[in-house]
Structures are given as structure tokens and as C-alpha cells.
């Protein structure tokens, strides 16, 4: 991905050199032309066309913001409820992603999702131990959300 972006920047600079004018607008036009050229030659690269990956990152960011808002509403409900009747606990969640930065992003997302907080990443990096605010209520849906996050992060790193 980084190589494709670098190539695209080089194409934009070469475009400016051809035009012999160095305005931001020329850079932009050159960048767009380079984007089209990279799209046409995409089968020569070993990774995907990089715009797809940028779209996946944006998608992840939007999901992140939505989850932050939802988690705050959930915490507010528990804190301001008249009776403390939640059932907290720690459960283990096996994960399928291996790279360090992927695990970091996943644990950040889990920490900021409704009612869950990462306690420990196991030593072999295959399990996350998560403290949940209300175990019987959310365990099923939480697993669904986690799989969704894992899929989104895989989309980015694919």
C-alpha cells in the first residue's frame, strides 16, 4: 500500500514537471491521473488497489465513533439506574488476528464498546481476557460485535 501511494506521489510530481507549473491544482490533477493509471495497472501489484484499503479504514473509523457513543449511553444507563443489578465478570475471547498493531486496534475498539474492557492479552496473543459489565445480557451480542470488528480489521490489513 505504501509503495502504491509513493508511486502515485511520484506521478503527481512528474505531472507537475511536465506542465512546468507548480500550483496545488496541478498536483491534484496529476494525483488523480496517477490514480487512474495505477487502477489500470493494478494486476501488476501484489497487494490490492490502495483506495479499497483507505475506504476500509474510513469504515472502521465511522464504526469506532458509533461504538463510542453507544458505549457512553450504556454506561450512563448503568450508572444512573436506581438499582445496581448488573452481573460483572471476566470472559475469554479467542481472536484470529496475529499482528501487534491489529491486536492494539482491536483492544482499543473493545475497550470503547458498550460494557467491555480488556484486562489482559494472553502471552501467546491468541486470547483476550475481557471484563464485561453485564455478562448474561451481552455475551452473545458482544461476540457478534467482536467478529464484526475482527472482520473490519482484516479488511484493512488484507
Amino acid at each position, binding site marked *: 500500500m505504501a509503495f502504491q501511494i509513493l508511486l502515485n506521489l511520484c506521478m503527481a510530481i512528474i505531472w507537475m514537471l511536465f506542465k512546468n507549473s507548480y500550483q496545488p491544482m496541478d498536483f491534484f490533477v496529476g494525483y488523480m491521473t496517477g490514480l487512474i493509471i495505477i487502477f489500470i495497472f493494478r494486476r501488476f501489484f501484489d497487494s490490492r488497489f490502495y483506495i479499497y484499503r483507505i475506504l476500509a479504514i474510513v469504515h472502521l473509523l465511522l464504526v469506532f465513533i458509533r461504538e463510542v457513543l453507544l458505549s457512553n449511553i450504556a454506561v450512563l444507563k448503568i450508572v*444512573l439506574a436506581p438499582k*445496581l443489578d448488573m*452481573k460483572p465478570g471476566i470472559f475469554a475471547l479467542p481472536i484470529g488476528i496475529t499482528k501487534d498493531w491489529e491486536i492494539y486496534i482491536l483492544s*482499543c475498539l473493545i475497550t470503547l464498546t458498550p460494557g467491555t474492557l480488556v484486562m489482559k492479552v494472553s502471552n501467546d496473543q491468541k486470547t483476550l481476557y475481557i471484563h464485561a459489565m453485564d455478562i448474561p445480557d451481552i455475551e452473545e451480542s458482544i461476540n457478534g460485535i467482536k467478529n464484526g470488528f475482527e472482520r473490519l480489521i482484516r479488511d484493512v490489513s488484507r
Partner: protein
Amino acid sequence: MTEISHSIIILFIIIGAFLNLAAAYGVVRLPDVYTRNHAASKATTLGVVFLLLATFLFFYIEMNLFQSRLILTIVFIFLTSPVSGHLINRAAYNSGVKLWDKSVRDDLDVTKKEAGT
């Protein structure tokens, strides 16, 4: 136009202050370290971010100043506050702080016992 922007700024400030207040209330009220950490690490994050957003909008609309430092602060808070919550929880667990009595599961404890024996 200024009326709309004013009401948005006021709304953001009220939401942020309310979230911080609720977080403080949660820290006082909830029973053990881990559940308190839920309130402290989530509600305050969003509360501070709302306050910063309101400040940013105020300076941008009223005084026409684009303060990029406020945006950077929001990004830094989002990057660091989950990690601090995680580390406090982990340190508490490793130094043997007990869970609340009504906790229903503790997978981490089970695996620790298996590793020990």
C-alpha cells in the same frame, strides 16, 4: 446562522459536562475497581472530547481561528485513554484486587490456576 452555531456549541458543552459529572458519579457509586474503571475510562473520554469540540467550534466560528491543536488533542485522547484504562485494570488484577461479590465469571482466574498446578 450564528444562532444555530451557538446552540450547537452550548449543546456540546452541556453534553460534555454532563458526561464528566456522570463519570464522577459512577466512580463514587460503582462497587469495585473494574466497574469503576468502565465509567472512568469511557464517559470521561467522550466528555472531554465533546468539550474540546465545543472549544474548537467556538474559536472557528466566532473568531475565525482554526486551532488544529484541539483536533490533535482529541486524537491523542482517543489513542491513549483505552490503554490507560487497560493498564490500571491489569495492574489491579495482578496485585490481587478482588472482583465484586456478585461477579459471575472469572476465566482469567481459572487459567491462572491451571498454569500454576
